[in-house]
């Protein structure tokens, strides 16, 4: 029995540590894929320390963790003393308030705080950037405080109240007695509460994910977007270093504690005092260093005389300097040294739209697709551009000006254009099956097919297959599309956007509909991949264009940026990396030849003629399509009519019945006592 128990324990520890072992081994891998070890290297560690962005994110996380911990330790300890002395009834209320963030699911806490900040900051105070560094800090303090309170309270309860009275009898003021006696007694609680608050804050993802704005992002939130793109092994290197750091910290803490315990036993009276005093001093120094460091970091944040430009773009949609391409943003910052670009990515038009619509952020340049631009114009979400600041607009080919989505060309400057087709793996997929969009419904490849994870493209594919107009507003047709998409679900492996890269490259899946440029990028990595346009059924031809949303703060700098990207040389260098077609034909001269001549990127004119554009759909129809797609994805049925009322009644009952029940019980008890 005991032995079985031990064996199970060992197995459980192995279970807990296997994934970490995988990550640590991956940090020494020369290849990019975590599951294939290609050779030993320390290169990832070197790459980590050469990456200023990653270090800045780590700095952000540390800054938030240090500041929120320092604040909640001080504030929480003071509050705990207050709460401890409250009358029992009030104390109970205070403690149940403390328990709310502890018991609430993180996602609800995150959602509620983000709605609060947007509602109060955005709607009531009319603030534009209501989600910023300070709201993130407030959120972290709010979920850190309970850890401190709940660790300090028991220590206060254990403390002998006579000690404090004795101190005051000996002439201490209450404040002196707090610092000389109470603090001393509750220190272990403060330290363990602080450590918990720190680790929770450092690793928090869910709450930060909902509360974070554009300008201040912490490491876990960024890692979430990284895990969708092919993840760079230097992240594993960082994980390994953090692991080592925390491991060493914990072991030393354990050893110190063990030694202290031993000493306590040996010489109870004499040794305690200096040890505690030293401990207290160490704590004070650590705290002071933390606060100071935090302040220094805060001050060393971007200075106000430089302009910060927030660019919000598709994932993998700008050349970033890897694989011998030009680092566009660095080049821009070099040309305009007073502008600092803050770059963030989204994975679909819908995600970008929600983020802007939800509010609370500043974005200066955004690059949506055609139909989304039309919708944003319709909803007054874009600002008119001043084309005097964008002289390079003249390089843009005439056929890409005055598009349907922006007929007077007041709001947008084309960035790229391309097609949506099918990417498939020739090693596994029979060429005879590649006949059209129905390939995505082929049961032969069950479990190896991916589907695009945004409503417009998914419905577009169903519409091409069923022969409907892609811009239909007919609800019956949309319903038929939804049914067609639901039919596809059993053969699908998953719905993806940016995650597609690693899945297709390591042949985890074989067939996926995707954008031409990204497909080209994947084909460069895996030569078995091929791209196919269903010419008979039709396909989407899209234009992504640069716009300035109405939450912009630096319009002139934004126009400078747009102008910079329209420079043919820059555009060509950019296309070398992102593999899309440039709306500036002169840019072709600066592109790698094999890309400029690729049929994937620049299909023949007659093929192109078959492609159709997505056009503006009224907001109501867009929402309908989105909810249909939600239904397809989440096996959601139709809503009921009176469900809401029933729900409210149930909730009310749940909230009311227990207290009433308790009250009755108390009355009965009282009555019994009287008898």
């Amino acid at each position: 029995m005991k032995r079985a128990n031990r064996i199970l324990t060992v197995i459980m520890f192995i279970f807990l540590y296997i994934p970490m072992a995988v990550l640590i081994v991956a940090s020494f891998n020369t290849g990019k894929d975590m599951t294939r070890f290609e050779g030993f290297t320390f290169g990832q560690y070197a790459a980590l320390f050469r990456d200023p962005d990653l270090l800045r994110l780590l700095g952000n996380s540390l800054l938030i963790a240090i500041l929120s911990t320092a604040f909640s330790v001080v504030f929480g300890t003071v509050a705990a003393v207050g709460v401890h002395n409250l009358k029992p009834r009030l104390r109970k209320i205070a403690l149940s308030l403390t328990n709310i963030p502890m018991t609430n699911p993180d996602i609800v806490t995150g959602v509620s705080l983000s709605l609060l900040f947007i509602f109060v900051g955005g709607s009531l105070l009319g603030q534009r950037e209501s989600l910023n560094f300070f709201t993130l800090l407030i959120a972290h303090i709010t979920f850190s405080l309970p850890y401190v309170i709940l660790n300090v309270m028991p220590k206060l309860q254990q403390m002998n109240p006579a000690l404090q009275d004795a101190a005051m009898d000996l002439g201490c003021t209450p404040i002196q007695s707090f610092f000389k006696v109470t603090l001393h007694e509750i220190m272990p609680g403060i330290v363990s509460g602080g450590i918990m608050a720190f680790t929770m804050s450092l690793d928090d993802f869910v709450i930060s994910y909902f509360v974070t704005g554009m300008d201040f992002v912490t490491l876990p939130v960024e890692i979430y977007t990284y895990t969708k793109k092919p993840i760079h092994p230097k992240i594993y290197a960082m994980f390994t270093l953090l692991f080592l750091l925390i491991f060493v910290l914990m072991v030393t803490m354990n050893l110190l504690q063990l030694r202290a315990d031993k000493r306590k036993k040996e010489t109870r009276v004499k040794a305690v005092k200096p040890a505690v005093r030293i401990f207290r001093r160490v704590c004070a120094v650590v705290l002071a260093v933390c606060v100071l460091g935090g302040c220094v970091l805060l001050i060393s944040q971007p200075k106000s005389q430089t302009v910060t430009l927030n660019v919000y773009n598709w994932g993998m949609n700008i050349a970033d300097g890897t694989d011998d391409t030009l680092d566009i943003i660095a080049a821009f910052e070099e040309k305009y040294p007073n502008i600092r670009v803050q770059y963030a990515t989204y994975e679909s038009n819908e995600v970008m739209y929600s983020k802007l619509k939800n509010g609370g952020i500043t974005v200066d340049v955004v690059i949506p697709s055609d139909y989304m631009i039309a919708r944003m114009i319709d909803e007054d979400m874009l600002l008119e551009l001043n084309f005097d600041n964008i002289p390079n607009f003249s390089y843009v080919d005439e056929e890409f000006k005055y598009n349907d989505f922006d007929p007077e060309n007041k709001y947008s400057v084309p960035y790229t254009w391309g097609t949506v087709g099918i990417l498939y793996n020739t090693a596994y997929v029979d060429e005879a099956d590649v006949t059209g969009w129905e390939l995505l419904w082929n049961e032969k490849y069950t479990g190896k097919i991916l589907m695009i994870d945004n409503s417009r493209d998914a419905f577009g594919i169903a519409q091409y297959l069923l022969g409907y107009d892609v811009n239909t507003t007919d609800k019956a047709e949309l319903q038929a599309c939804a049914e067609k998409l639901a039919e596809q679900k059993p053969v699908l492996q998953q719905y993806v956007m940016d995650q597609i890269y690693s899945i297709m490259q390591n042949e985890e899946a074989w067939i996926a509909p995707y954008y031409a440029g990204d497909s080209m990028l994947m084909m460069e990595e895996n030569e078995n991949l091929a791209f196919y346009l269903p010419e008979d059924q039709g396909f989407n031809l899209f234009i992504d264009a640069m716009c300035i949303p109405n939450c912009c703060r630096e319009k002139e700098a934004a126009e400078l940026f747009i102008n910079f990207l329209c420079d043919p040389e820059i555009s060509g260098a950019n296309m070398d990396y992102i593999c899309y077609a440039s709306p500036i034909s002169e840019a072709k001269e600066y592109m790698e030849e094999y890309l400029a001549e690729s049929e994937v990127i620049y299909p023949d004119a007659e093929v192109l003629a078959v492609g159709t554009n997505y056009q503006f759909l009224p907001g109501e129809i867009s929402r309908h399509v989105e909810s249909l797609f939600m239904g397809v994805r989440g096996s959601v049925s139709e809503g009921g009519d009176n469900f809401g009322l029933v729900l409210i009644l149930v909730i009310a009952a749940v909230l009311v019945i227990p207290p009433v029940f308790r009250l009755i019980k108390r009355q009965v008890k009282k009555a019994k006592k009287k008898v």
Partner: protein
Amino acid sequence: MKKNKSVLLSAPYILWMLLFTLIPLGVVAYYALTDAATGEFTLDNLNALSAYLPVLWESICYALISALICLLLGYPVAYCIAHCTTAVQKFLYMLVMLPMCMSFLLRTLAWVGLLQDTGLINRFLEWIGIGAMPLIRTPGAVILGMVYNYLPYMILPLYSTIVKIDNRLIEAAEDLGCNAVQTFGRVVLPLSMPGIFTGITMVFVPAVSTFYISQKLGGTETVLIGDVIERLFKQGQNQNLGAALSLVLMVLVFVCTGIMNRFGGDDEEGGVIV
């Protein structure tokens, strides 16, 4: 005199918590009961929720199954740790804590690398001749992810209760003629009940609301309530419906923790906090 004054110290804290925990929940309720476009009062969002009942039910099942598996696996581990010498106990406790401090996103991603069709486990199975098995994108994979991520939340409170059990009670039971099974069933298990209930709550709450684990390890059929809320907020353009769903999730969790607290005894400190 002093006591009265120090009571004032709690005022800023209570104010802070009201401002940033209770009022936000009110804002969620406000969003849940208003229309996205017009801002008028409506029950539409709540009415639409009935469509999500199957998803909610499924999430509860997943979370409960994970909590029970965590209990079955965690109890022996906690028991084993509690019966080591103090120094070893401290070290093992730390080993359980350590994974919780590391990025759970990356650790889950490591499971993807292990489980996927072209992953480490399947390559190993092929190599020894068994052949690849469908591991990832199954309900089992989601439960595995939950168990892996939340097992420490079960072990730690269990350990804290088991370690407090007075050894003399066990000896007394043995003296009175109980065999090992009887001692466990009649003494140890009843005494570790509070830890069991805290552990189940601490696993259930994050498991029922997770979205990352089901997104990474689940397939097209394993959509959980957290996924739906995340989608509604981040790309569904329907914050109001998302708020309504969050409200329901919150009430559900409060009811569950309420029930658990009832069984776990009214401990003012709320058992063990990790």
